[in-house]
């Protein structure tokens, strides 16, 4: 049987998005499920982010796959659907399957006549069984999959929902993702100028419950780990010098982190690797961080989220800005690139933007990623605000567009959002210098790709800097079908009479989970705006502007 697995492309080739300049990782979801497929079958992976568009249709028409699978996060919902719709049109005999975060958290979105199966949750075991069943049934084109847990399939006019699949207990039992299937793209995945970057995962899940994140719901609030031996086996097997560890929270269990360090040291593995993790772990464990740094850690992506403790609390981040600051200091000291993700909010005004950018500059974050707090489907935040959305166009849920009404006029809001690029520039420059001075070996490894990275980033930033880019993206798509018509900021005033944090649960988590006490009020009106001090660079710019205006008049 022939199986085609497709990583969809973001629609607009020039669209703003991380994969344009900051981070393009391997399609691990696809190589992971492909690894479960028996050798009797033939598997192809197409990464459409790196292919010409017509290759997809041509492959379906000429190779005639028996099964086409694709993956989707919320922003890619339409891309995934387009892939499967096209498959149905060209090769109606092929089974069409979708999986991934969006398929799991918003399955109804995929209940379409051209989709046969929606895989929910972890995909390995489900896919393995699905492939075998389809192989047995495809001659008679029977597309029902009763008895396979973790999926829903179209059964006539109805969708049959199978019981939830219990998660694989021991990640070591899973086959290693089949990276051979993406050999032809080797060297093209990157994080910043770490180009030629492999991607692996070493754990799944997170035991925190931030209300803007669905990871903990997806993985049922449990974290599972690969053993240190398996992780280092995988690292060793990569030809690439750089490795991205895709875990959502790598830094969570001290014992396993130390076992990992031991294994790396024992085998003398010399790789540069980066991952994602919380700042409180870094702040509380400087000595472990120092050891990780010696073991090749060069970067950490962390959700700093905010420069304000009340806001962190409202997001259920269970962290403080002081820990953010300490963590950043530790990373600076160790020469680890700190990539801080921050979230501006729809209710912000100029002063809050200024304060955030100033905070970033004070910290000297290597790569500050300023995003917009977005109620992503599957999150608590979404449940609270799903009736207040200005758009249901999932392309705009990329954390770069505001799907809620903004307090400032939208143009103003995006002006302030767009200036993060220039206003946080001092932070980036100082941090880069610091890392390269402290880690000459890393500087040497990254230097060859620096011009490549800067050239692309400059072009990306040119779009981002122009606030009208955001307005143009959303033109005609706000208050569209499914969204509430004519919604304004006033409709979303977050009133002071809401019960405060810690009250009765108001929003229900998925039924499989412990019901949490989730505050309805996420945007606290009584939270004072952080003190509004314009960032130094901005002040200078303003002074210069005033001077120019004076001269002109």
């Amino acid at each position, binding site marked *: 049987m022939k199986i085609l697995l497709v990583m969809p492309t973001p*629609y*607009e*080739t*020039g*669209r*703003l998005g991380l*994969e*344009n*300049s900051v981070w393009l990782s391997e399609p691990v979801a696809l190589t992971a499920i492909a690894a479960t497929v028996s050798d009797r079958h033939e598997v192809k992976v197409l990464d459409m*982010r*790196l*292919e*010409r*568009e*017509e*290759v*997809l*249709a*041509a492959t*379906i*028409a000429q190779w005639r796959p028996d099964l086409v699978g694709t993956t989707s996060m919320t922003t890619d919902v*339409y*891309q995934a*659907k*387009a*892939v499967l*719709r*096209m498959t149905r*049109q*060209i*090769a109606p005999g092929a089974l069409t399957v979708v999986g991934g975060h969006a398929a799991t958290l918003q399955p109804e979105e995929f209940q*379409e006549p051209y989709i046969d199966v929606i895989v929910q949750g972890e995909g390995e075991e489900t896919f393995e069984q699905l492939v075998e069943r389809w192989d047995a049934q495809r001659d008679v084109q029977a597309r029902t999959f009763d008895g396979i847990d973790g999926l829903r399939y179209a059964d006539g006019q109805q969708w049959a929902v199978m019981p939830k699949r219990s998660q694989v207990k021991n990640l070591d039992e899973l086959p290693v993702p089949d990276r051979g299937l993406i050999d032809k793209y080797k*060297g*093209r995945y990157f994080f910043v100028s770490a180009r030629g970057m492999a991607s692996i995962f070493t754990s799944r899940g997170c035991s925190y419950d931030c209300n803007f994140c669905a990871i903990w719901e997806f993985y049922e609030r449990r974290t599972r780990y690969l053993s240190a031996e398996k992780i280092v086996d995988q690292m060793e097997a990569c030809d690439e010098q750089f490795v991205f560890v895709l875990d959502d929270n790598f830094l969570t269990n001290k014992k396993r982190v130390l076992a990992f360090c031991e294994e790396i040291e024992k085998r003398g593995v010399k790789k540069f690797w980066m991952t994602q993790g919380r700042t409180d772990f870094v702040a509380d464990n400087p000595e472990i961080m120092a050891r990780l740094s010696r073991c090749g850690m060069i970067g950490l992506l962390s959700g700093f989220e905010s420069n304000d403790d009340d806001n962190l609390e409202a997001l259920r981040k269970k962290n403080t800005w002081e820990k953010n600051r300490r963590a950043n200091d530790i990373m600076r000291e160790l020469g680890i690139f700190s990539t801080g993700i921050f979230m501006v909010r729809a209710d912000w005004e100029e002063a809050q933007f200024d304060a955030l950018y100033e905070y970033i500059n004070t910290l000297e974050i290597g790569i500050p990623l300023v995003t917009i707090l977005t109620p992503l489907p599957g999150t608590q935040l979404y449940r609270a605000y799903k009736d207040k959305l200005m758009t*249901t*166009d999932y*392309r705009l849920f990329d954390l770069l567009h505001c799907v809620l009404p903004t307090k400032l006029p939208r143009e103003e809001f995006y002006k302030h959002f767009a200036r993060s690029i220039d206003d946080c520039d001092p932070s980036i420059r100082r941090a880069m210098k610091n890392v390269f001075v402290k880690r000459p070996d890393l500087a040497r490894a990254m230097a*060859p*790709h620096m*011009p*490549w990275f*800067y*050239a*692309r980033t*400059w*072009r*990306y930033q*040119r*779009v981002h800097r*122009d606030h009208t*880019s955001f307005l*143009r*993206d959303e*033109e*005609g*798509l706000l208050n*569209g*079908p*499914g969204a509430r018509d004519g919604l304004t900021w006033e409709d979303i005033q977050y009133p002071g009479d809401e019960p405060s944090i810690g009250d009765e649960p108001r929003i229900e988590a998925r039924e499989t989970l412990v019901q949490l006490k989730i505050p309805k009020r996420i945007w606290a009106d009584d939270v004072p705006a952080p003190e509004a001090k314009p960032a130094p660079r901005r002040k200078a710019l303003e002074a210069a502007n005033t001077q120019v205006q004076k001269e002109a008049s």
Partner: protein
Amino acid sequence: MSSARKFLAELRQEIESHVGVNHIFLNRLAVSPMAKQDYRVFAENHYPLVCAFTSYLELLLLRAPDSEARLWLSRVLVDEYGEGSEGKDHSTLYAAYLNAAGGDSAAEDAGVLRAPALEFIETHQELVRKRPFLEGLGAVGPGHEWSIPKMFDSIIPGLRRAGFDEQEIGYFTLHLDQDEDHGTWLEEALARYCDTEEAQQQVRRGTLASLEARRRFWDGVQAAVIRYRQPRATRPDGPEPRRVLHEVALTAWDGSAIGRRVEEMRQSRQQAQHPTLEALLQRCRAVG
């Protein structure tokens, strides 16, 4: 099944699975919430194709070898001129849609053609004028009549989602039925011709040339929609990774005022050289 019928059945299948007919852009239109603004760009690019279609039929009619072919071509022409659509010819129907999307059909009539439409129309004019009759018939016959219902099946749901009413999208819905009819008549007409290997090859060549032009046309329309949304595209990688020098040169070019001006001048000069639709049709009729 006769060899002609078998050939036609296979041809139909080939058309239905062709990249031009199942273009990813069409599938995106079918599933994504596009706005009227996107459909305006779409309509401005597509409108000339609708206006030019009758010219292919007229040219082909002049070269039709027998009454069977003439009959089919005239039937389609009559429909294009308004039979079955309350006397409104198809370009008038399309103009209504273009205007509903926020476009200006009068300005489009007077303006020069955009590149994707120009290339498509020229390719077809060439096929109906200069290639053997059966190649031309392949292009306007199966290449159009058997592909349009499937393509419009992708387009119509998106138009409804974007808020167009049934009257405004009458051009598209009408074609679902009419082209099915034309397609059936066509099958009969073609069955007579396609009895030799050579005739079959000619029909197939014309059909595929038309579909290939269609693929390039959709590429162009998609690019125009993207440019409308994001004029300063970030030029992400193509199928081959770019060399560092190439990246740097692109950035320098994009970033320099001179580079931008040169590019703008080049584009407007190219555009200025394009004919208007009317001029193109007249030129073609004169030569025809």
